[in-house]
């Protein structure tokens, strides 16, 4: 009856039951794999849970979370602040886009991780290097989303705007920007996900606080793999929460039209 392709709405208890069951199975598989292999290095879920409790007790966890979030906020914020106007401009003037596009296409696929040595030359070992790497990771998806957003604005919206006597500046703010906004939001969401990936890597190398540092520090000081895995899970949960928070933007009425599957 409850086959996978059933068109009927799943019952309320089913919506929670199956995901919970899958999670429980995953934890059980993890637990018994640790047991059966007899590993002394890799922690079982219970050990991770105890490790998590220890981190909370020692009050270092909160400071690390705040540091990571702060770096992401600054790096991502700067990328958005710079990337949105630049992306809108490049989308608005295709001639300018053609000039910078080749350079951008070469820089874009370079992982921010590859920039680490360069970032350290520029900014030294410290917060600024980490923020710079996050900025790099977030900047390109935002610019590309803005360019595509603007160039995909249906010509009839532009023409309607011109017809009503808008100046080019008004056309940009009253027609092009709101029409491109759903795509810009998608770009920002992707960029935020990347920023959260990059912060962990950056903190392993450039700084001595944050969740990435917590992972590398737990390993280096006594091979505390229970703390390593606890920090990993925390990174996953916070990343999910950030994404869910961002998705709420898609429900705003003036952009909702641009997203499918939203009633």
């Amino acid at each position, binding site marked *: 009856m409850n086959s996978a392709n059933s068109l009927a709405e799943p019952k309320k208890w089913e919506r929670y039951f199956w995901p919970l069951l899958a999670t429980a199975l995953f934890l059980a598989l993890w637990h018994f794999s640790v047991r059966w292999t007899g590993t002394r290095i890799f922690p079982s879920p219970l050990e991770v849970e105890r490790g998590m409790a220890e981190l909370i007790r020692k009050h270092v966890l909160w400071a690390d979370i705040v540091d990571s979030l702060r770096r992401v906020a600054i790096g991502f914020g700067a990328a958005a602040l710079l990337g949105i106007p630049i992306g809108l401009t490049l989308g608005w003037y295709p001639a300018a886009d053609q000039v910078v596009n080749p350079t951008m296409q070469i820089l874009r696929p370079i992982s921010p991780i590859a920039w680490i040595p360069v970032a350290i030359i520029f900014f030294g070992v410290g917060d600024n290097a980490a923020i710079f790497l996050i900025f790099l990771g977030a900047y390109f998806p935002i610019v590309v989303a803005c360019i595509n957003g603007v160039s995909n604005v249906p010509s*009839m919206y532009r023409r*309607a705007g011109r017809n009503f006597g808008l100046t080019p500046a008004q056309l940009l703010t009253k027609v092009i920007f709101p029409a491109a906004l759903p795509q810009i939001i998608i770009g920002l969401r992707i960029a935020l996900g990347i920023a959260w990936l990059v912060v962990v890597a950056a903190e392993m190398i450039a700084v001595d606080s944050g969740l990435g540092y917590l992972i590398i520090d737990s390993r280096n000081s006594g091979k505390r793999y229970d703390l390593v895995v606890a920090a990993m899970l925390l990174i996953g949960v916070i990343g999910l929460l950030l994404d869910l928070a961002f998705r709420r933007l898609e429900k705003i009425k003036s952009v909702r039209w641009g997203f499918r599957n939203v009633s």
Partner: protein
Amino acid sequence: MSTTPIAALTHPPTATTTKLSVENVNMVFTRDGKSTPVLADINLTVHDGEFICLVGPSGCGKSTLLNTMAGFLSPTSGTIRIDNEPVTGPDARRIFVFQERGVFPWLTVQGNIGFGLFKLPRAERDERIAYYIKMVGLEGFEETYPNELSGGMKQRLEVARALAVNPDMLFLDEPFGALDSITRLIMRGELLRIWHAERKTIIFVTHDIDEAVQLADRVVVLNSRPASIQQIVTIDIPHPRDLSSPRYLELRDGILQQIGLAHRV
């Protein structure tokens, strides 16, 4: 390419002031080094307050002609004059209503109707918005976004947005093409009511000959690409028009024959 009406239908237009004149307009599109003539030597005079329908087979270039009149395209040669001034671009005094429903999905019904009124003081703008919401029967939907409206409501919204800036001309490009037949009939009635009340000059593109004969003072029949004027038919039936009167059928069948269609399915 005669411009004499069919048989003895000569009814000289009563209006005297010329609103729009199309003079020897030619349009050639060039793409990949291949040039395609789209409009061939179009000459047309439209009087102030007149309702003109452009009909012709689909793809014949009637939309191109309308876009040229509205200033979105410039002709390869020839001139278009409105109020005796050459058209150089779009203008808020003449609003184009798009066939693909150009309402802005990020604005509410109110926001859409008020879109062109940004130069007015707040109070006057609100008053006009309320007036046109009432005129097109969208009361109660002021705060609604277009996605939650039916096709007919969206089309009425777009017409209201156009009327709100009080233009002297409307260009309508198959505005009712995507509507179901009942809504389409209602919308035609609405448009005629608005036209009677506000006396705009209307240029209306359609491929539906019935629609043209129901609405227009004169029907301009275009032939296939490159479009040229095949015939201009004066519809001398007073409004409201009886769609089963012999005169209506005679005019409609005359145009159908012009286009080369037998009126049998």
